[in-house]
């Protein structure tokens, strides 16, 4: 389709097969960027608390729903223009979901800090079920649709390759957020505190780090990025569902394991890689098995290399 149009406009275009491949690749990168943003939340919490935050996927869904509600009720894009409107929207969603993450930590995880691992896992699962069903009772079980017309459906011409603008924006925005997080963790004093608490909580405490505040911070940062990812999914696909958080959550968790859980650059690389694997797998193997691809990757990586591709921290085997 694209090649036919570009031939008509007599712009030199890549061969159809290459074109198809590049479309799938860029689509995979966009989805992968979204996975990576969610994966960062899993990996940071795991790094500090050694806990799989099962409710993280649902915080992502809250981002999508809050985004929808704010987008339609405030009509920001009409008032201040598209670019500024979306920017304000992203920041509002990130802030609100971050607060939700902090509340979750207080309610579901802090009381169980000293409990056996099973208790925390079950509580996390309970929180996930609770959050998901709250959303269902408020918005209903149907798919919700991001309104047409607010968002530009423009395509971008990159050397004869026509890419949806939203796809390009998502890749750029997710990479921007990841770089910002990476610099924050690596270059600031607070970032150093987070890294220290991830290595050894007791030693960090002895160095005068308030570990509770670090944990709180991790539960603000992770959900903020996850909420932004939810908004991106809404903007990219236009359709959201109250239960989508668990599939995205599982895939993002796979991405975190793929890169090496607890490892922040690993989560970013794992997310992008998984997105590309999935997009190419769906295009060239079978679309019906798309959702199974991520789970197969997950199981394979745990069997073959449980530390992940970049993992320095060893997932203890007993």
């Amino acid at each position, binding site marked *: 389709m694209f090649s036919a149009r570009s031939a008509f406009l007599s712009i030199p275009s890549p061969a159809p097969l290459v074109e198809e491949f590049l479309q799938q690749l860029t689509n995979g990168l966009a989805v992968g960027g979204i996975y990576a943003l969610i994966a960062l939340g899993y990996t940071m919490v795991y790094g500090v608390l050694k806990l799989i935050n099962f409710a993280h996927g649902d915080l992502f869904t809250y981002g999508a729903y809050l985004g929808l509600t704010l987008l339609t009720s405030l009509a920001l894009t009409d008032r201040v223009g598209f670019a500024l409107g979306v920017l304000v929207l992203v920041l509002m969603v990130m802030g609100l979901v971050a607060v939700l993450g902090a509340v979750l930590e207080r309610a579901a995880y802090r009381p169980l800090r000293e409990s056996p691992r099973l208790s925390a896992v079950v509580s996390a699962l309970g929180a996930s079920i*609770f*959050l998901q069903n709250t959303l269902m*009772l408020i918005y209903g079980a149907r798919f919700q649709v991001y309104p047409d017309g607010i968002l530009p459906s423009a395509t971008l011409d990159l050397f004869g390759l026509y890419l949806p603008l939203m796809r390009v924006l998502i890749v750029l925005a997710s990479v921007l957020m990841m770089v910002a997080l990476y610099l924050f963790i690596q270059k600031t004093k607070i970032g150093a505190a987070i890294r220290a608490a991830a290595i050894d909580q007791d030693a960090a405490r002895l160095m005068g780090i308030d570990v509770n505040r670090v944990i709180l911070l991790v539960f603000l940062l992770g959900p903020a990025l996850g909420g932004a990812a939810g908004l991106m999914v809404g903007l990219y696909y236009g359709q959201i569902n109250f239960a989508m958080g668990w599939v995205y959550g*599982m895939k993002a968790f796979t991405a975190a394991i793929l890169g090496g859980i607890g490892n922040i650059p690993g989560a970013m690389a794992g997310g992008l890689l998984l997105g590309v694997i999935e997009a190419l797998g769906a295009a060239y193997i079978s679309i019906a098995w798309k959702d199974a691809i991520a*789970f197969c990757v997950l199981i394979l990586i745990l069997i073959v290399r449980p530390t992940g591709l970049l993992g320095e921290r060893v997932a203890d085997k007993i």
Partner: protein
Amino acid sequence: MSRAHLAVAGLAAALLAVAPLFLNAYQVDVLNSIGLYALLALSLNLILGEAGLFNMGHAAFYAMGAYTAAILNTRYQIPILWTLPASGAVAGAFALLVARPVVHLRGDYLMIVTIGVGEIVRIALVNDVFGITGGANGIFGIGRPKLLGFTIRQPQEFFYLIWGFVAVTIFLFLRLKRSRFGRALNYLREDVVAAEGSGINTDYYKLAAFGLGAAWAGMAGTLFAAKMTIISPESFSFWESVVLFMIVILGGAGSIAGVLLASFLVVGLPELFRELAGARMLVFGLVMMVMMVFRPQGLLPARERF
């Protein structure tokens, strides 16, 4: 088991045995559902409760059994109850196959893998794998079970089939719990390293728990297929695994009485409050969070052994 415990258990069994005489078909059907869930939860209890292996893909083994029974029955006209051994064997063998490479993983990792296995099985069923599962529509026209020339049709009749199976299961699992095997599983749950140090072949016992629990779930799948006469992938979703996991944890991991009680509460209570059905899962989620803070050992915890 003390005399008081025995008296309570006997009374409960007697009440349950005569219940179909006083209840209508719908109520008996609810009891049948509870029985099936109790059966599945007891089989999961072997893996999660006794051996402490976080399995959140139990629905996959249940599905394996149900589909084996349905395929053998509808394609090869094998009477449905005769498929019980095959269902158990297929589910058990599948569990051994998938658990073998991952069983050494630590708790929450194992949980993630089993979730993944459950999803892959469900997706495979939806995609009509090998052309025998009937895709998203599933398999219908499964034959009624026959026992000694008597065809089981009514809910009241199914009640005795299902709860009879539950009774046999309870008896066998109680025996198992008190055996050397059961003690080995409990030791695994408490401390894998110490168990290994005491000469317990941990991988062997973990796999045995997985295989046996899955085989039992597979047989429960046969009963489910016989009861419904139609099965489809949506009966074996992730949420089934979650509900089963919840039953075991809420009842008390490793406690047969607790698992039975929790089956009644988790499956039965929502039927009593049908107008609140939408909020059912919400309440479950909340209960899970609150329980972990105030009573992590479950409603009727197993007695300490060590």
